[in-house]
């Protein structure tokens, strides 16, 4: 174990004067150091890792892990009680209720028909939203990767909606899309008829997807842009010398080199798409009928807002959802590794 001189200040960043922030940080952190040094003496350097990880782990354990464990327990119990000790054990009843279906393609034959409608709705949403978003994010990233004026401005413009709260996004678009909204006013002004954008099930689904692409695209655009910019310019030049046209340069340079970034984008956007809820709910309320009711909304309604609070059933649904997500992610990563290995 090394002994540490307690008060010696070691200037690591001598290349410039410490700024205001650095001085503030110094004033704050230096006294903490004096408290922690004895701890380091007691623990040893390597075990200091535990000290660093502990606060996060504690909060994480209590407020994320423990509830998840409780949730898992809930899924095997019944009744409306909140306290686990007051909930009778029902075994796998919740799961069999959830999964019992005459025909999985036809929700009417299922015990929990709305769950299955939500499953199919979510599947459709995930497919169209993720593919739509990747196309738009990629096109935008490619456009922003060109040497044009105002890149910084455009980059910010596309990112701005990311900052808005899901509730506000839902509100804004509901305001635009309702039958007496501004979009319909535009259509009428052009000689068309008012459309039932939020009344027709397919239009509703379409708009939920569009709005969610609108709200999230900026983030993925930036990640893809970073991926594009990290591709060394020499590769393009080499391809150019070899006589490759633009299409071939994209196919043989941009596309393969962008794959790792693309994989990150696909995984992240998939995870988010499966979790679709608040924004869609603020926009359509899950309707018409159940056309835009997704799995998370089903869980939330069943476990929290329904007066009979079937927390056990909701928990079972979340366990099923979690399992599906896990399989999806692992499969994605495996697939990603394989394609990476091929290139």
């Amino acid at each position: 174990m090394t002994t540490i001189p307690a008060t010696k200040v070691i200037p690591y960043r001598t290349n410039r004067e410490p700024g205001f922030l650095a001085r503030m940080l110094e004033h704050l952190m230096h006294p903490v150091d004096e408290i922690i040094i004895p701890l380091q003496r007691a623990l040893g350097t390597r075990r200091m890792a535990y000290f660093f990880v502990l606060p996060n782990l504690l909060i994480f354990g209590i407020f994320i892990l423990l509830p998840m464990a409780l949730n898992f327990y809930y899924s095997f119990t019944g009744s409306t009680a909140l306290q686990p000790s007051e909930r009778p054990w029902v075994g796998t009843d919740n799961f069999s209720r959830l999964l019992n279906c005459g025909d999985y393609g036809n929700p009417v034959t299922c015990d929990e028909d709305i769950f299955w409608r939500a499953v199919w709705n979510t599947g459709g949403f995930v497919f169209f939203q993720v593919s739509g978003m990747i196309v738009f994010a990629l096109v935008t990233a490619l456009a922003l990767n060109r040497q044009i004026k105002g890149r910084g401005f455009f980059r910010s413009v596309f990112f701005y909606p990311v900052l808005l709260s899901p509730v506000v996004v839902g509100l804004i678009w509901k305001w635009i899309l309702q039958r007496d909204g501004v979009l319909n006013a535009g259509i009428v002004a052009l000689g068309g008829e008012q459309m039932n954008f939020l009344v027709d099930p397919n239009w509703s689904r379409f708009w939920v997807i569009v709005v969610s692409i609108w709200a999230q695209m900026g983030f993925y655009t930036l990640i893809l842009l970073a991926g594009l910019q990290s591709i060394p310019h020499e590769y393009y030049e080499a391809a150019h010398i070899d006589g490759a046209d633009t299409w071939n340069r994209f196919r043989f340079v941009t596309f393969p080199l962008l794959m790792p970034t693309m994989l990150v984008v696909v995984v992240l956007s998939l995870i988010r798409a499966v979790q679709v809820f608040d924004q869609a709910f603020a926009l359509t309320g899950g309707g018409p009928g159940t056309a835009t009711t997704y799995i998370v909304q089903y869980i939330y309604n069943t476990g929290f807002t329904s007066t009979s609070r079937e927390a056990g059933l909701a928990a079972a649904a979340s366990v099923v959802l979690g399992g599906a997500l896990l399989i999806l992610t692992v499969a994605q990563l495996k697939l990603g590794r394989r394609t990476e290995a091929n290139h």
Partner: protein
Amino acid sequence: MHRRLLFVVLATLLASLLAVSAAAAQDPITLRITWYNDGTEGEALRAALDGFEAANPGITVSIEDIGYADPNIYHSTIQSQVEAGSPPDLARVNNVSLFIGNYLDLSTLSANPEYWLESFSPSVLDSLRSGPEDSGVYGFPLQFTITAPFINRTLFEQAQVAVPSDSNDAVTWDEWTAAAQQVAEATGTPWAIAYEPRGQRFWGFSISEGGQWFNEEGNFTVDTPGFRTAAEKLVSWTQNGLSDPQIWANLADGPRIAREQFIAGQVVFLYSGSFAVGGLAAGIGETFDWSAVPNPSGPGGSTGSPGGSLLVGFQGTQHPEAVAALMDYLVQEDVLGQFSIASSFLPGHLGLAEAGLDYTANAEILQALSAEIPKINEQAYKLQYSQFAFTYNRPIDGRLAQVIAGELSLDDAIAAIQKDVDDAIANVNAG
């Protein structure tokens, strides 16, 4: 230097954290009422509370309006607080059965418990009790509500169509539908009928059509000819273009859209209820003449659905005496009367209801609505004051919305409502 700075920083942090957590424990008593607002009742209550505060120095009462946005999130939020052991002192609630066992019993705390028993209907008081052996007094109705239709009279005049109920005491739903359609066509009004998409509004309709909600064993039952007839009519309005499909497309927004349309003069006939009068009157102002008309008649008679939000105290309060004093103050005839007048509410107080109130605003409409109360069918009362009132309610509008959206046949919807209710009751009883 560093040590002192650290001390200062830590002290400030600690102080701010303490400030955050030390919200309670103040000397003068503050009572909190969890609340939501639909019209002018918040202001009316505030006026009453000012009177109470003036008479009781040392007690302040704060109205905590948390909004109602989603049909159930309001109650879920209160429920969470109750289960967490930190309920509000008082709350405005509709779904009273959720909190049975957690209400503050005023029968021992009130200065005059007899007055409570005389002033409020036993079925309302019973709805807060845990069973026949429970004789506690837990709260009072802020209003008595009755569902009923409203019509835009100006549109009837313009179309030169006679208002059916002016000459006939028992107008059927079909007659109203035909008249509203005729008026809408003659005046170029986009919609004939707007029906608030809430299961509770549908009870009265189906009973009028001969529906029986309870079978011989007294269990909740859906599949009766009356329910079918009423549901078919309801669905046909949207399908035939008499009603705006937007109303049923988003159930959270539906009632609001229905009322906004009526206010904007875009619909002839609105099925809503007495609870809407304040909001409608404020929106309509002088732009057209409107009135409440009797509930349509059918083989099952003419009945609306009763209801009403209650003000209750919670056992978990730190200041039971103050809560009881406040409740005693609010239920006084003059205070409650004033509150009802200012809110355009029908009183849930028997004495006031009998004597009648001198409404300064919307008097005619409120009188017409009062006339609907004696006609309420016994089944409708049974539904409203059942422990499962809200459990019955929710699937009805959800499933009918699916029928209107074309997802379910009416047969499937009926089976689904029955199953939803049975499952929910089984889950409640599992505890």
